[in-house]
Structure formats: structure tokens, C-alpha cells
């Protein structure tokens, strides 16, 4: 017989996690198309969130899991991962799985980073669940001067807020 227990509740990471949760900038095996993923978080007032931790988990170029990274945001609300563009995972378009922890978040937020212009986005089963007018919030966009740099903006608590998932 299976005993069902109730999961332990989440609590905020608070503002002082840096003393313990060490950063991991580089996602390990960088085989494939090298990219820099620039993530920036803004709160409901458009103020940079300078005390968040972002964790990313993605597949390699061949779609095999997994590479893990985590960073805290700087005073501009920014952190930069050194990684390689993920491949497709079964029917899913290339994407990076994201969890966000911060003071003021009693539990983590889950989102995904897709790559703008990727043809397989049109057939991605998860993007298909997102209302069309909000899909753009899940797209990283290439930097105009350097296409190996992808920018992803996370908006909390706003009309234009990023899509967050119930995982």
C-alpha cells in the first residue's frame, strides 16, 4: 500500500541566500552552438529585481538532458548564463526551463525560455497551451549586434507579465 504524505510547504528564499547558494554560470558541456543567455527581471513597478536567484535546466544540442546553472541577479536585475543552444526534446521546440526564487516569492515561479524565430516553436505542445498574445513573453531575442547573445526579460506582476506555469 502507498502511504500518501503531504509535501512540505515552500517559503521565500529571502534576501540573504548568497552566503550559501553558490553560482554556477557555465552549464558544463558546451558542445553545440555557444550562446550567452542574458536574463533580466523587473518587478511590478519596472524596478530591477536585484535579489533573485534564477536556475536553469536544459537539454544539450542533441536533446539529451541535462545541463544545470544558477545565478543571482545583480543591481540591474541581470544575470548571464554561458551555455549552448538546446536541441529539441522529443516534439518540443528548443527551450530552457527556468525557476525563479526571490524575496517576496513565497514559492518559486516556473517559466520557459524559447528562441524567437525557431521554426519548431509553431508546433511546440507547451507553447500551444499559451494564449497567442502572451507567447512573446516566453521568447528570448537575439542581440542586434551579436546574434550569439540572447536576451530574455522576465516581468513580474504587470499587464505584460511573463507567462508562469503551474508545474
Amino acid at each position, binding site marked *: 500500500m*502507498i*502511504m*500518501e*504524505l*503531504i*509535501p*512540505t*510547504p*515552500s*517559503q*521565500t*528564499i*529571502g*534576501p*540573504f*541566500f*548568497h*552566503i*550559501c*547558494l553558490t553560482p554556477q554560470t557555465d552549464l558544463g558541456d558546451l558542445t553545440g552552438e555557444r550562446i550567452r543567455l542574458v536574463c533580466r527581471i523587473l*518587478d*511590478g*513597478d519596472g*524596478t530591477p*529585481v536585484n*535579489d533573485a536567484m534564477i*536556475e536553469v*535546466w536544459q*537539454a544539450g544540442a542533441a536533446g539529451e*538532458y*541535462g545541463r*544545470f546553472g544558477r545565478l543571482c541577479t545583480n543591481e540591474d536585475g541581470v544575470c548571464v548564463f554561458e551555455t549552448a543552444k538546446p536541441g529539441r*526534446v*522529443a516534439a*518540443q521546440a528548443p*527551450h530552457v*526551463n527556468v*525557476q525563479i*526564487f526571490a*524575496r*517576496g*516569492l*513565497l*514559492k*518559486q*515561479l*516556473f517559466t*520557459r525560455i524559447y528562441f524567437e524565430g525557431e521554426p519548431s516553436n509553431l508546433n511546440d505542445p*507547451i507553447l500551444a*497551451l499559451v494564449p497567442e498574445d502572451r507567447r512573446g513573453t516566453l521568447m528570448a531575442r537575439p542581440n542586434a549586434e551579436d546574434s550569439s547573445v540572447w536576451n530574455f526579460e522576465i516581468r*513580474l*506582476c*504587470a*499587464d505584460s*507579465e511573463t*507567462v*508562469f*506555469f*503551474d*508545474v
Partner: protein
Amino acid sequence: MSQNTYRRHAPGDQPPYLYKQYASTVRRAPSKPLIFLPHTLSETSGPIFRPSAIGETDHDLTRQHAGEPQGERIIVTGRVLDDNGRAVPNALIEIWQTNAAGRYRHAKDNHQAPLDPNFTGAGRAVTDENGIYRFVTIKPGAYPWKNHHNAWRPAHIHFSLFGPAFCTRLITQMYFPGDPLIPFDPVLQSIPDEKGRQRLVAKFDLDTTQPDWALGYQFNIVLRGREATPFEK
């Protein structure tokens, strides 16, 4: 994909995103409903940590400096289980806390309380094959914060856990039994169910307590488990 997915949280088990008494949630909580994400390999896989990555004194916060830290020495131990009651081995647990005076060794902590040169306040452990972990540390202090007039956080230890999957990730806080600040703390009180709040309060345990040396506390942690398959039932 049903047989490999993780069980969803029941209403009331977890705090909401928006809890106005905790002021920082107001400009950070999502304002739109979350979109239900069926679990795929992206959520059911996750990073694997090896016990070899853990240093000899990582679990003992009283032995990370030349001298011993000030404060009441404690042992904090427990089991990490999934919600099917099965042990979770090889779970990475990271903890952080204030020193005995209620001060973090952090550049942005400006509480007027002394730092302790013999205390960093960070620890690391990996659960064994039975899901058991053990830390030795000192009891953290309460500290003031700016949430409301005369706001004080009860003594707590921050816990970060990686279970087997990206979706089993958990960050929480452990509190101490009998702390008079608990009823006034909006962070803990944000959890709707009283039983849920109780799950974050460690239990004093005389069997864990070591004579002439340290008080013992038990703190068990339950991560999400896989949904039962018809075969298992």
C-alpha cells in the same frame, strides 16, 4: 505521459504568491493565472549531485573556522521522503542561517548585532540511502525586518533541496518549537493550513540530543512524489 508525472499540490498545502501581510509579495506575485503545464521530460528530469562533492565539514557549521562559534550548539537531522512515503536518497540539502545574535554574514544585512568570526552560517549535505541528513550548527537568532512596525523574524534555518526532478525543487525554512514570534510572522503564517505551518516547525528530540554536548531537533521534509500508477495500486 501520466505514469511518470509528479503529483500536484493540493489547495492549502502551499502559500499563495500574493499575501498582502508580507509586503514584498505585492509587486512580485503574478497577477495573471498560471498556465497548467503537463509534465514532460523537461520537468521530470533534474540535476544529479554526488556525495563526493561535499566537503568533510560542510555539514558541521561549528567546525568551519579556527575557533568555535558563540551560541547554543544544536543537531538538526531528519529524513527526506517523497509524498509516497519513500526515502529520497542523494538529495542535495543546502542550509543558511544567522549567527546566535541574529546577524547574517551578508553585505546587505545591516542589523545592529555582532558578527561572529567563527561562524559563516552555510552548510551542505546529501541524504544517504535512507533519505537521512544531519547538520551540526548553533541556534540562529531572531532578527528585525522592515515588513511592518516592530517586525521580527522568528529564529529559522533556510533549507534548499534538490530532489530527483526539476519539479521537485524546494526552498523552505525550518522554525523552532515554542518560538513566541511564530504567530506574528507573515512568512510562516502565509501557509493556509495550520498543519502545513506545523510541518515547518522542527521537533525537539531527546534521542537526538547528545549528553553534555548539543540539543537535538528532528525535521523531516516531504518532496513531491510520482503519481501512483494503476500497477502499483
